[in-house]
């Protein structure tokens, strides 16, 4: 019995965190945000060289064939760095959809290209979670018509995987006739969400998603665990920054971290977040090894990290006082990252209802 990260997993974590600390600094993030870029070429190049784009793709299809726990460590590192790169949609949700619902030809065509960074996928499944502002997406005779909102990594995507109203999944060329994309400006400038309108757009069904929604649910679960991991990394940084600030900032001739009011805020953040790490590890591990528990655990990881992330984001900002509220300090990039993670693929109340249903309650 060993409930801990392996030596290899710690090395993976260190190498990605190390790379991002040197190459994806706050200045870099700020520059990309100002330029409206969500896939700056140097960072994209760097992370493709690290091999993480194909982290869950089998080796024979050009990936590294690791598990969801390894993938969660990558997502966590990207959250730490508030890194502006496509990952959760393109490198996790799309491969999960292809692996669970695609035929051999589809897998062989797309998975190596995702792993190499040659093709970016956007994934649109929000209409299956809590549909808003759209009448949905109808599939008929190999064509899609309708509107997909909040397509993950959708703006930078070359290809799309879209769920239709019946939950079946389709591959669509993002630049094909009948596909119109519009950027959705969000609070978080480090991620690219899009609204995509389809008018008789050519679509290719992922055949195993037609009669069963298992692949769709797996895709959503995987996406949720990665969003939870992203929030885990971002929340960790927000606590580190709050503690560092509390040790340095002086008022009334004392560092403010010596005041219990401030110290207790820091202790509460750490006490809330630390157990989430174990929940996240277990949930991610269950995706590969305890599938009978993974549905409920993915819900818990996403919903609970959303709640704790929100608490950490506001509390850390408060510990920083007026500076926390400024653009100059840049703390808001983490605040907004956590805010977006919470809303995407289902806000907590909706997800907890899913968890209750999944347990037969």
């Amino acid at each position, binding site marked *: *019995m060993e409930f*801990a990260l392996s030596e290899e997993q710690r090395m993976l974590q260190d190498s990605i965190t190390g790379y991002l600390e040197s190459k994806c600094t706050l200045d870099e993030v700020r520059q990309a945000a100002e330029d409206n870029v969500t896939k700056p070429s140097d960072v994209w190049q760097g992370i493709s060289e690290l091999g993480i784009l194909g982290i869950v793709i089998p080796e024979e299809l050009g990936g590294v064939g690791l598990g969801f726990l390894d993938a969660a460590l990558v997502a966590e590192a990207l959250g730490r760095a508030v890194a502006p790169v496509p990952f959760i949609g393109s490198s996790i949700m799309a491969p999960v959809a292809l692996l669970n619902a695609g035929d051999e030809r589809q897998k062989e065509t797309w998975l190596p290209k995702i792993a190499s960074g040659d093709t970016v996928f956007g994934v649109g499944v929000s209409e299956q979670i809590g549909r808003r502002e759209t009448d949905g997406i109808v599939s008929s005779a190999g064509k899609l018509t309708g509107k997909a909102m909040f397509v993950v990594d959708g703006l930078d995507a070359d290809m799309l995987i879209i769920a239709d109203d019946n939950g079946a999944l389709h591959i669509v060329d993002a630049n094909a006739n009948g596909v119109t994309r519009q950027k959705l400006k969000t609070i978080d400038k480090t991620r690219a969400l899009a609204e995509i309108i389809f008018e008789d757009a050519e679509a290719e069904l992922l055949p195993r998603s037609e009669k069963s929604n298992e692949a769709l649910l797996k895709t959503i679960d995987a996406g949720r665990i990665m969003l939870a991991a992203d929030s885990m990394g971002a929340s960790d940084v927000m606590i580190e920054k709050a503690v560092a600030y509390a*040790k340095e900032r002086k008022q009334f001739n004392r560092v403010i971290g010596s005041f*219990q009011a401030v110290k207790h805020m820091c202790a509460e953040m750490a006490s809330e977040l630390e*157990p989430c790490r174990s*929940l996240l590890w277990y949930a991610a591990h269950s995706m590969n090894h305890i599938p009978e528990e993974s549905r409920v655990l993915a*819900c*818990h990881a996403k919903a609970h990290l959303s*709640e704790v992330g929100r608490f950490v984001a506001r509390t850390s900002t408060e510990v920083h006082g007026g500076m926390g509220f400024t653009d100059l300090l840049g703390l808001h990039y983490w605040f907004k990252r956590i805010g977006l993670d919470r809303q995407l693929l289902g806000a907590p109340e909706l997800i907890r209802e899913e968890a209750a249903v999944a347990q037969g309650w």
Partner: protein
Amino acid sequence: MDLAYNEEYEAFRAEVQQFLKENKSKAPKGRAGWGNPDEESKAWQQLLIKHGYAARTIPKEYGGYGAEPDILKNHIIAEEFANAKVRPGHSGDARLVPVVLELGTEEQKHALVGPTIRGEMTWCQGYSEPGSGSDLASLSTKAVLEGDEWVINGQKIWTSGAQYADMCFCLVRTEPDAPKHKGISYLIFTMDTPGIEVRPLVTMTGEAIFNETFFTDVRVPKEQIIGKRGEGWFVANATLKHERGSLGDPNQLEARFRALVSILKNEKIDGKPLIEMPLYRDQLVRLQARMLSMKYNGMRILTASNNNKEPGLPRWIVKLVGCELNHQMAALAIDAMGELGVLYDESPYLRDYGMWQRNYMLDLGLIIGGGTAQIQKNMIGERALGLPKEPKLKAS
């Protein structure tokens, strides 16, 4: 990450299960009560020690089973007893026995450990005083050495079980001129020593769990001290560490969560179970996520300890988060019962023997006791996050 146990441990688990199957009928029913153990409980404890399911790692020469420390085996024993709903054994008084083993003299180990683990010698803890709660080191009960005896005068409070206990381990000030942490000694004595008066202190649950204990010229032989004169604070910290470890136990959280699910399924309004109502199920799932995260946090601590590593932050938060979560689960159960939730004692319509109201109150006691939530946050802030201590006030 490997959540399976290897063959050795699976074999051990089978052995425990076999034992439980064969001996379950001999186990006393229900939880251990507040008083001293009865004959049935003592016989059960003896049987468990004999098989290594209690006092497992305590050396044979002092009355234990004498196994090598193995955290996973301890965990398996606890899990299997919980699954079989059989009352587990104990390793004597968890606050005292480890301290005697670590810091006691050879004579003390022989005299105290065996009877304590067999339940023949029970203990109460004389630490807190009316004027010394969170600031325990300011305690003022004093002991003066007169010839071969310590003479103790003062008052203790929150002495759980003092009305039954055979013995007391007690912090007293023996070096009035030394700095506060360095003037304390750790004495042990029998509770029938003349000059000790115990007055039960009824708590909000209606039970006399605690006492006030008064000492007037209580004379204790000089050698009944653990550790050296003036080092009692450090001895006591060793015991507090053991006590804190047990509060907020994740196994207990999970058991309570299951009971909470049952009550939400069983309680109905106009025939509709509460678990089908969105507001209740939302709160239930929220608490489930917290409970599971503490369960896995416990697995992380277990793994670290098993590899001889200091678990760090995951361990520091257990008491704070676990006790609070227990309290919140009891609170939801009471809300789910609506007006029935106010019933207590032996009232008609009482649910679950009134345990929810009782636990709701008792948990608040545990949030306060064994280091208040605020003291826990200071420790997490200072020791785990490295924030500076509050500057000391200059004595005026």
